[in-house]
């Protein structure tokens, strides 16, 4: 950090040159300032190095005005933060001991040396005024001489003692004028030496050399050779490979010539042994050039090594601050074997589950569970589920005890996914249309997608492993009952149980330590810390990913296309399982008062004769999780028109999904087939009876007609209609012919009951007007009689059937 401070520096501050023409050419510490005398005493902070010797230069006296001019002209500046001292300078005695104490010592060498050095200069520097006098070179020399004479013990020359005191004093001033400033540079001792460049093979001789062969002494390890060994150690000596294999691969890759054999194939011809590293060289230099590649790491796979072999001060979700900012998607197969919904004895194998989890609190907002393998369609269904209001769906599943408000619809800004189901253009484009981006984690790095992976684990344990037919996510072991034998559940039941578990996961209290904010807003207001509550809380504070594409609009973009037809009664859906045949999903239809829908419906009503039925077909959009509505997109302006369900069976939409309705129709088809047959038989009998009546009437008429002398004219037939009518009326009772019983039937009835026939002769006359019935053959006639008699004991419908049968036979006889 640079400073623009332009005041007189004070002792202890540091002046740093920032221009090559600065008066002070190196970082200097101010020791003394005298403005009146225009003097400033400074000392260079950094030690100098000469011929392997490290030393500090002495204090320098400079003109204060010149230094200030430098500061004014920004050639140098005052470092406000000073200079960080050497660690050993700032260390206490205890710290030094902790760092440098050797085995058997009570006081470390460096500590005792520091104390000794300070003792040497202590009389000179412990008094502040005396210390300032040392900045005068002449006085300094005098005092150093006095002190040298005082401590001189004859072990070294006086001059050497003087020089030693001078050096310690310089260091004392340079490193901050504290007792710790005289700490020696022992810490720098014993450092790693410079690696020697090899010019010839070192180490013991190999066998050929020992036996007098020349030129086969072994490989000289140049820098390039060492680097190659390091590279190969890191990359070739991995899990599943031995050192020998890694060595041979290194030889092939780096120490070989590529040649073509007679068949044109590439062959690696290894260089002579003396030109490639030996195994010991490979091991030695491989390890040396690969710090951090310890043996334990070699036991791990490359991916695990990437994951574990480094320190991360954070988590993959630490940069998530809002709901919907980043979700996580993944699919897995459920650990259950299922049976068919139609017949529980039919095994259908396992199913797939796709989960969508919000990264902020691990809230599971939606899922797909079904037989379809993960694909663009199922991923879309999962996202649709995440966005859909679940009220209807819960009712359909029979989970009315769940509060739909705890199923929070979330639209995601981006989602984390692995490189399987979502890595295709269809999904990328579909999710882009709802404003959701995708982040693909690295290959086999599903640990970066931990939110959804742990949710998978939770659901496996909460649902899959507790139901019939579970595989427990493990391979079958001998002696154990097969999961498919134990299978009892249908997919619908699995969906219900998964929904139950997801709800429990989202609404169960979390054992987390609440933050102060959480405590204030939730805990103290008696609100439980559940994933659902936390998510709602974040949303209420505006911590959510938003977009101009609203949730409803996003949902409509994920709706699935379905074929339907405009009919006079509304829109009927076409069955997808009927092939080319056009069959409606009959029990339900969809209606809307939108002008466009009314126009299309009207067309289907009035233009049916002119066009083919197919022309009224169109594509609609539907949400499998909300069957009470479908949408129609106006192709001209893109408007999305909502159509509502209309059905006589009010329970149907909440009890059945579309597939169930189709299934129901298939089952109903048998009943309808039988009903149709019965209907046509009944009608046929009716028409047969009518034909008989017509024939009898016609014959009676003809008989009367023939009795006339002269055929009457049409006018005479039509005349006197009114009188005839009055005359006829007189013959009737209540204006209608009163029913009289059939003589035979009455006789039969009186025989069976034992009561006399009470009908009048006039009534009998009515029946006598009817032409006599032809006599059937004695055999069939007798049979009929017995049938009628028998039937008259039972109910009237059987009796009627018997009479009709007899008439029919009579009719056949006439013909």
């Amino acid at each position, binding site marked *: 950090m640079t400073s623009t401070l332009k005041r007189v520096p004070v002792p202890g501050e540091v002046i740093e040159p920032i221009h090559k023409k600065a008066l002070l050419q190196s970082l200097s510490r101010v020791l003394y300032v005298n403005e009146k005398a225009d003097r400033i005493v400074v000392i260079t902070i950094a030690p100098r190095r000469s011929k392997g010797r490290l030393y500090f230069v002495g204090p320098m006296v400079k003109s204060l005005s010149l230094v200030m001019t430098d500061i004014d002209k920004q050639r140098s500046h005052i470092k406000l933060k000073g200079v960080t001292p050497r660690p050993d300078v700032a260390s206490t005695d205890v710290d030094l001991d902790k760092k440098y104490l050797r085995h058997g010592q009570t006081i470390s060498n460096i500590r005792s040396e520091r104390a000794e050095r300070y003792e040497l200069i202590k009389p000179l520097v412990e008094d502040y005024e005396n210390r300032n006098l040392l900045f005068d070179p002449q006085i300094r020399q005098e005092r150093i001489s006095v002190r040298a004479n005082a401590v001189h013990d004859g072990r070294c020359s006086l001059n050497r003692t003087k020089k030693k005191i001078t050096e310690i004093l310089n260091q004392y001033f340079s490193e901050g004028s504290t007792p710790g400033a005289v700490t020696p540079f022992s810490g720098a001792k014993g450092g790693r030496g410079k690696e020697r460049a090899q010019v010839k093979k070192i180490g013991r001789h190999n066998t050929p050399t020992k036996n007098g062969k020349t030129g086969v002494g072994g490989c000289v390890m140049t820098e*390039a050779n060492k*680097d*190659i060994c*390091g*590279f190969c150690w*890191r990359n070739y000596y991995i899990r599943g490979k031995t050192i020998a294999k890694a060595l041979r691969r290194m030889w092939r890759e*780096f120490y070989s010539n590529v040649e073509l054999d007679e068949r044109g194939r590439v062959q690696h011809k290894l260089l002579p042994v003396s030109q490639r590293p030996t195994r010991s060289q490979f091991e030695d230099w491989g390890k040396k*050039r*690969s*710090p*951090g590649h310890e043996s334990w790491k070699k036991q791990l796979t490359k*991916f695990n090594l*990437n994951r574990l*072999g*480094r320190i991360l001060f954070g988590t993959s979700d630490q*940069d*998530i*601050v*809002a709901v919907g*900012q*980043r979700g996580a998607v993944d699919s897995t197969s459920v650990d259950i074997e299922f049976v068919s919904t139609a017949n529980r004895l039919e095994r259908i194998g396992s199913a797939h589950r796709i989960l969508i989890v919000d990264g902020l609190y691990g809230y599971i907002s939606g899922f797909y569970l079904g037989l379809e393998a993960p694909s663009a369609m199922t991923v879309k269904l999962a996202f649709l589920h995440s966005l859909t209001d679940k009220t209807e769906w819960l009712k359909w599943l029979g989970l009315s005890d769940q509060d739909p408000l705890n199923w929070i619809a979330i639209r995601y*800004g*981006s989602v*984390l996914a692995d*490189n399987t189901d979502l*890595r*295709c253009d269809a999904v*990328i*484009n579909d999710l*882009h249309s709802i*404003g959701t*981006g*995708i*982040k*693909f*984690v*690295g*290959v*086999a790095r599903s640990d*970066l997608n931990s939110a959804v992976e742990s949710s998978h684990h939770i659901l496996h344990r909460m649902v899959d492993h507790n139901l019939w037919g579970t595989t427990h996510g493990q391979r079958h072991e001998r002696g154990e009952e097969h999961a498919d034998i134990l299978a009892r559940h249908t997919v619908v039941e699995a969906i219900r149980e998964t929904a139950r578990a997801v709800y429990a996961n989202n609404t169960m209290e979390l054992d987390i330590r609440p933050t102060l*904010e959480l405590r204030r807003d939730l805990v103290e207001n008696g609100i439980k810390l559940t994933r659902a509550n936390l998510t709602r809380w974040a*949303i*209420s*504070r*505006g*911590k*959510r*990913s*938003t*977009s*101009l594409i*609203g*949730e409803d609009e996003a949902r409509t973009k994920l709706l699935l296309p379905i074929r339907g037809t405009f009919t006079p009664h509304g829109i009927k859906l076409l069955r997808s399982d009927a092939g080319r045949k056009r069959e409606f999903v009959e029990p339900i239809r969809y209606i809307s008062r939108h002008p466009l829908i009314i126009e299309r419906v009207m067309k289907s009503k009035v233009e049916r004769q002119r066009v083919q039925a197919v022309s009224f077909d169109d594509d609609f959009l539907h949400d499998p999780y909300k069957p009470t509505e479908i949408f129609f997109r106006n192709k001209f302006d893109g408007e999305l028109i909502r159509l509502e369900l209309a059905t006589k069976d009010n329970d149907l939409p909440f009890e059945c999904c579309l597939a169930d309705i189709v299934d129901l129709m298939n089952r109903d088809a048998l009943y309808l087939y039988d009903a149709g047959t019965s209907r046509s038989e009944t009608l046929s009998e009716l028409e047969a009876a009518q034909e008989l009546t017509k024939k009898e009437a016609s014959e009676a008429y003809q008989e009367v007609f023939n009795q006339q002398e002269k055929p009457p004219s049409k006018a005479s037939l039509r005349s006197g209609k009114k009188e005839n009518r009055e005359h006829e009326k007189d013959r009737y009772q209540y204006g209608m012919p009163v029913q009289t019983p059939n003589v035979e039937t009455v006789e039969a009835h009186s025989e069976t009951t034992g009561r006399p026939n009470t009908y009048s002769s006039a009534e009998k006359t009515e029946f006598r007007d009817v032409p006599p019935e032809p006599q059937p053959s004695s055999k069939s006639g007798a049979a009929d009689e017995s049938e009628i008699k028998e039937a008259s004991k039972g109910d009237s419908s059987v009796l009627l059937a018997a009479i009709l049968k007899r008439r029919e036979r009579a009719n056949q006889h006439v013909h």
Partner: protein
Amino acid sequence: MARAPKVTWRRVEESIASGMGTGFGEAYRPTLEIKRWNPSPMSVQVVKPVPPFNRLCHFFSHSEWYLALLFSWLGAHIREQYPLWPWPHRHPEYSRFPEIDATLPRSEGMEAICREAGIPHGVFVGTNIPYIWSIDLCIFMPWVECRSQATCFVSVKPLESERYLYVDPLDRGPEKLEAERRFAKQLELPYFIGDRSLYPGPIFAELEVLSEAALLPTQHPWAITLNRFLNDYQGSLEANPLSEIHDRLIKDYKASAEQATFLQHHMLWNQIVDCDVSSPIRESLPPRKGGKALRQALRKSLEGGRK
């Protein structure tokens, strides 16, 4: 996993004809796209639009995505995976402003640059077709007055990585960076190497949330609500907690919760409310000032990235 498509001259020509590596803004198409056949063993790849455009952008690492997001917050237009053609070609800004086209320098192409630097250029595997290099981010800075200098190249590389500890005979990273630098130099454009670790961590998390609300078309109904709100309260916004913006929009302007959140985020992204996004945003407190200054400082550092 799907295989990479075989590269032929015909395919290259077709890709170029279809607009690969060309166009500006919404019409730009990157050279490399995230497909089924090119997953990364290390990086998190991101497919998502970056404001102010709605086209899908393809970032091959999370750092690229974050830096693109940061630069777009500054107002820059991002072209990711920008091609460095092997043959001589025009300046990246050619035809954006036709009046300066004649003054823009041309590039000799990466092949010539590599030859000069003694770096093997490389070919598509199994062919003799020269490889088409791409640079991570090509940034257009609309705020720079000198239009020929308003472009900048950014190569996104981790500044700290374990692999830097070792000498890798097969690692071409430094060579590539040098070639990219020379390329930028030839076109007289700023070039620098960036990494997300250069910037404070929370800024990316906040920008990622706010970016969803970066754009609000003026004819959109919500824009009318925003204008009404700003007319009434703009002077006092920075003195009150951010949650008040949200609450007022719901209570006084009958906005839905989603709409209120969107408008709040829109104001923060566009710094209508001066708020420092480099630290976590606290709704219960008045916004910390410094967002505008930060944006200005980052713009300057981006402009000063010349080598």
